[in-house]
């Protein structure tokens, strides 16, 4: 990047002459290095899936979850620095609990908005760095299923299908082919598993764990991990599809 060593990237509180904040762009780089996280919003629910790269064979399977539960009906997947993501999740829980205390069960939008405000505040001061993490936050509230993505810059947009991390471009391509208004939540689980397996680059990383959570009719409108039997089936079908594909 030609902007390096110009001095405009030393602080999140400094613009470059052409109006960019480099620290925020570097934060996006941190997100791009991480395993892919996707979420699909369909007519009656939301499905999350994450490609969790296993950094060491010594790790206990299931450690370092990258999909977190925010409230009964809200969940969050993270791409980027896990530690930053966990901090954002903790903050999202606080916001959700605060909104619940004042107004009853919070909408996904209100929590995503507040999380956006929080992330944005970390782009204003020289004493802090922006979050190296994108938070995909979704759930099912009184208005139905909802899905948002909060980026390091603090923007929070709503999506039908969201993707962040290494394989986001390919994943977005695949997501665009889905018919969100026709899929059931159960079908979306298979699609999500397929996309994560497809996006995973065997040549670069050896090992990864698939992590999936969902909310919808079948989960009783609670945000929970996808049940074991469905998970195993979706995982297997995704592997099979990939082998036929090659």
């Amino acid at each position: 990047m030609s902007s390096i060593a110009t001095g405009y990237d030393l602080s999140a509180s400094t613009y470059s002459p052409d109006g960019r904040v480099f620290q925020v762009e570097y934060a996006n780089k941190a997100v791009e290095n991480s395993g892919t996280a996707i979420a699909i919003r369909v007519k009656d629910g939301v499905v999350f899936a994450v490609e969790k790269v296993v950094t060491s064979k010594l790790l206990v399977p299931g450690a370092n979850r990258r999909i977190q539960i925010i409230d009964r009906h809200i969940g969050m997947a993270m791409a980027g620095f896990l530690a930053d993501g966990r901090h954002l999740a903790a903050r999202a829980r606080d916001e959700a609990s605060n909104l619940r205390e004042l107004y009853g069960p919070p909408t996904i939008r209100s929590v995503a908005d507040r999380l956006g405000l929080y992330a944005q505040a970390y782009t204003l001061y020289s004493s802090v760095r922006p979050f190296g993490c994108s938070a995909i936050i979704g759930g099912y509230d009184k208005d139905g299923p909802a899905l948002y993505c909060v980026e390091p810059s603090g923007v929070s947009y709503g999506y039908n299908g969201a993707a962040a991390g290494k394989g986001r471009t390919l994943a977005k391509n695949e997501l665009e082919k889905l018919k969100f208004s026709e899929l059931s939540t159960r079908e979306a689980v298979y699609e999500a598993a397929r996309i994560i397996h497809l996006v995973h680059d065997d040549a670069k990383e050896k090992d990864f764990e698939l992590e999936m959570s969902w909310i919808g009719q079948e989960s009783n409108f609670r945000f929970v991990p996808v049940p074991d039997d469905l998970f195993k089936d979706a995982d297997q079908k995704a592997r099979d599809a990939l082998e036929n594909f090659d």
Partner: protein
Amino acid sequence: MDHFPTNWGRPRNDLNDAYNTYPLHQRPYNGPKDTFADGVQRTQQPIVTGTSVLAIKYKDGVMMAADTLASYGSLARFKDIQRLHPVGSHTVLGAGGDMSDFQYIQTSLDTLLIEEEITQNDGHSLGPSEIHEYLKFLMYGRRSKFDPLWNSIIVGGVKDGRSFLGYVDLLGVTYEAKTLATGYGAYIAQPLLRDAVEEREGQENSITEEEARKILETSMRVLFYRDARSLNKYQVATITAAGISISESQHLSTEWSFAEGIRGYGAQTQ
């Protein structure tokens, strides 16, 4: 921005304060003042109240009963209030005393559950004894601030094959027993419950669901006859290994023909 120039202090002097660090950022407060801040009065009495809750252990777990009345003093103000409240998937609370305090307790336990059980999702869940312990500290803490939550609460549940039945009240007093009753029921119904259970001394675990239901119904009927703050509509909660079920409100059949023969009250001419 502080818009009161009188609060801005003296202009800074480069000689003795080059970096504008003095005075510290503390200024007179010009906001609204709470005139009554030092005239606080704490809860002195309950307002809208529920009466007794009864509970016994039986073969499959715990059974609990409470009527659906919330009184305003001696007025039967609300006649369809549920006083049995599920907490998580192993526990039911039954409360007598102030209903608004009970609703507050319900909300705070809901928050606790989201924090400790839902978002952690680590396979651990709060059982009846944990909820009881938590309420013990909550109630005792509040009474120590001279601001009690004006309730007597029965906590019942089953977890890991063990049934639990405990009591906690506005003073922070707790105990566990095979049969429990709060309020007026502690005087009128508790002996009946004990009789029914002690009959089976050493084999309490043999009381069937049907028998337990019968015991509670009889006691609720006696309470309706004797307790002027009670109602002939009540609900029964059963907590077993299979889960929680709280019944629809059911009607108590009563017999009043004997009243004809009573002499000594009112304006009979004998």
